[in-house]
């Protein structure tokens, strides 16, 4: 029943919605993944838009970026907060590290889509290879985020907690923890799901099932995680 092919043609005189065919040309599982992702998109939009509301209700820094100092009086400029890179201590490299993280996540999205493509061709070895690369990308991203959080929490003295931070108003750190944390948790879930797909591929579950649609469904989730990061990157780090 799990058909991954295009739309079925209804009998003459009947509409596609009269039953017996799939009007959306996708299996139940794939459709439900799409609608779950839609609801998840609402959740992330709510978080990011609330960030926008709180930020626009705080005074913005109006001076020149060169003279910027951290203060509780105004919202900080993100590029002044996120400017450290691991192993290059004391070197000011604004946004370089998040740029690297963005690149890692985009690359893991590419390897995922290659795994899906291999699944369509029933190429088990290629699915295994690309799933492993995707898992590796996910773990690398999570490690980067762990470093980023540690650096943010320790800071240059006071650091940051949910009630007070050295960078700006308390809400700034609260949103940082909430938004990147919620996204990071999605990445973590994605890595677990990817591992499950990898395991099932290696043990031949999908080969016996006759199709690799599960790779496609988990792939949708994984791309969504990448998509959310694109928005977090813009609205939290760039703007």
């Amino acid at each position, binding site marked *: 029943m799990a058909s991954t092919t*295009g*739309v079925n043609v209804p009998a003459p005189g009947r509409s596609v919605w009269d039953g017996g065919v799939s*009007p*959306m*040309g*996708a299996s139940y599982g794939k*459709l439900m993944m*799409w*609608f779950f992702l*839609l609801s998840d*998109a*609402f959740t992330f*939009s*709510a978080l990011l*838009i*609330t960030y*926008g*509301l*709180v*930020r*626009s*209700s*705080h*005074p913005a820094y109006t001076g020149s970026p060169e003279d910027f100092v951290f203060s509780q009086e105004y919202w900080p*400029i993100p*590029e002044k907060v996120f400017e450290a890179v691991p192993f290059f201590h004391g070197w000011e490299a*604004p*946004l370089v590290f998040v*740029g690297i993280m*963005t*690149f890692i996540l*985009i*690359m893991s*999205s*590419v390897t*995922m*889509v*290659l795994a899906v*493509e*291999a699944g*369509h*061709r*029933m*190429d*088990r070895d290629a699915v295994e290879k690309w799933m492993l690369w995707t898992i590796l990308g996910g773990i690398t991203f999570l490690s980067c985020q762990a470093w980023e959080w540690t650096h943010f929490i320790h800071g240059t003295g006071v650091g940051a907690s949910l009630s007070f931070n050295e960078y700006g108003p308390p809400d700034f750190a609260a949103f940082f923890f909430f938004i990147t944390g919620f996204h990071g948790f999605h990445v973590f879930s994605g890595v677990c799901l990817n591992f499950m797909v990898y395991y099932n591929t*290696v*043990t*031949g579950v999908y*080969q*016996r099932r*006759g199709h690799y649609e599960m790779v496609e469904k988990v*792939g949708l989730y994984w*791309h*969504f995680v*990448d*998509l959310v990061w*694109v928005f977090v*990157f*813009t609205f939290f780090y*760039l703007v």
Partner: protein
Amino acid sequence: MEHAEDNIQVIPPNKEKIKRLWTVAGILAAVTAVEFLIAFTMHHGPLKVSIFVGLTIVKAAYIVGEFMHLRYEVKVLFWSILIPMIFVVWMLVAFVYEGMAIGELRF
């Protein structure tokens, strides 16, 4: 754990399709690089913010359209996903406007 069903045919890779995927990846990387460039060369203001939002939507379209394959799905599915996004756009406008009003009252 031998290959249980060796009779299943492995179809050779579609070179054109794979090339397209890498092209999309290249575009995504290039757009991110442009965003970086703008972040450090342009003066902060509404124009800069709109450029960032525009480029983000471009990236989102490529990810959802190509990687998530939505462009090639049936039209009903395509619009079922896209139309509800109107609510998000409205929420963004309403909340940011409200935020600025709150800011004027408080500070």
